[in-house]
């Protein structure tokens, strides 16, 4: 069975740096970023998306609707902004 690939997307301006997704990820995909969003939080970045196994623990446990996982052809980590000036 070929390995499944996932796109991990973080909505940067909704993240509040609670760290639950980083602590729960069993494959160490996520890490705390060093940039600030508009509310002054260090938002999570999907640093190693190629390790994602699609368990979606981060998506289900995110209190801020700020991260989600979609199955795709190639693994990719995205940081997007909901609010665009």
């Amino acid at each position: 069975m070929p390995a499944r690939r996932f796109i991990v997307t973080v909505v940067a301006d909704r993240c509040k740096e609670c760290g639950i997704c980083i602590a729960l990820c069993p494959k160490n995909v996520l890490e705390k970023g060093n940039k600030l969003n508009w509310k002054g939080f260090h938002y999570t970045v999907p640093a190693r998306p190629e390790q994602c196994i699609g368990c979606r623990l981060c998506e289900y446990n995110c209190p801020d609707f700020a991260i989600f996982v979609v199955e795709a052809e190639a693994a990719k980590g995205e940081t997007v902004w909901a609010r665009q000036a």
Partner: protein
Amino acid sequence: MAVIRNIHPLDRFLRPERLPHMWCPGCGIGIALSAFLRAVNELEEEGRIDSRKIVFVTGIGCTARASGYVRFDAAHTPHGRAIPYAMGVKLANPDLIPVVFSGDGDIVGIGGNHFIHAARRNMDMLVIMVNNMIYALTGGQVAPTTPEKIYTTTTPWGNPERPFNAVTLAWIAGANYVARWSVTHPELLKNSIKKALLMEGFRFIEVLSICPEVYGRHIGFRSPVELYTHLRKVVKIRGKIRPLETEYDWERGITLGEFVVRDEPGFVRRLMEVVKGGKA
């Protein structure tokens, strides 16, 4: 003028222009709301529910702010009066599905009597009580659901009161469906909500939540991750257990599970029987 995009898969049930929400970092209410929205999403994809018929009713409190973030017909009602409002919605138009999503202070504190009597009438509604075990919005006073010996701002030597076990209360009052889950197990919570949304009569789901800012701060778990992992140790999932055997204690553990599944006729069906049998 800033442009707001729909990005997250649940954004069609949310009002993205109002996000990020006002809840503190790591607050469990967002996890509970996301489990509810996923349950509605899955039921709608399966064609078993029409999300336009859901009326989302909340009272006052941290949890109650959820009515401002969801794209359903929603009502933000006076303190403790979410259940009477939902009752009126159901009786005015029995096609609608009222969902009460509120906190522990709102449902078993101020609105305790409404809760008991709605369960006694088997009123057709789903009540989701997000229990963070404290009055968080007003600064961390002791709530009727604060476990014993817990330190809060109004109990500086530990809580001497016995807490409410809302599961037992709902069972005694006569609810059709009673379950207790925790935000540390969001998939089980989602499955429970999916089941309860399709039932009739009074359905009650208690969701244990984490409040790192006010509850966790006083008991030594200031970081959301610490409180989350500690709550996961406190809760114990038990199957096939009677509501009286459930435990509600921070030291000994809090029992999770599905405790009552009954199929008694709801209030609307009983009312219709009486009205049709009479002169009207």
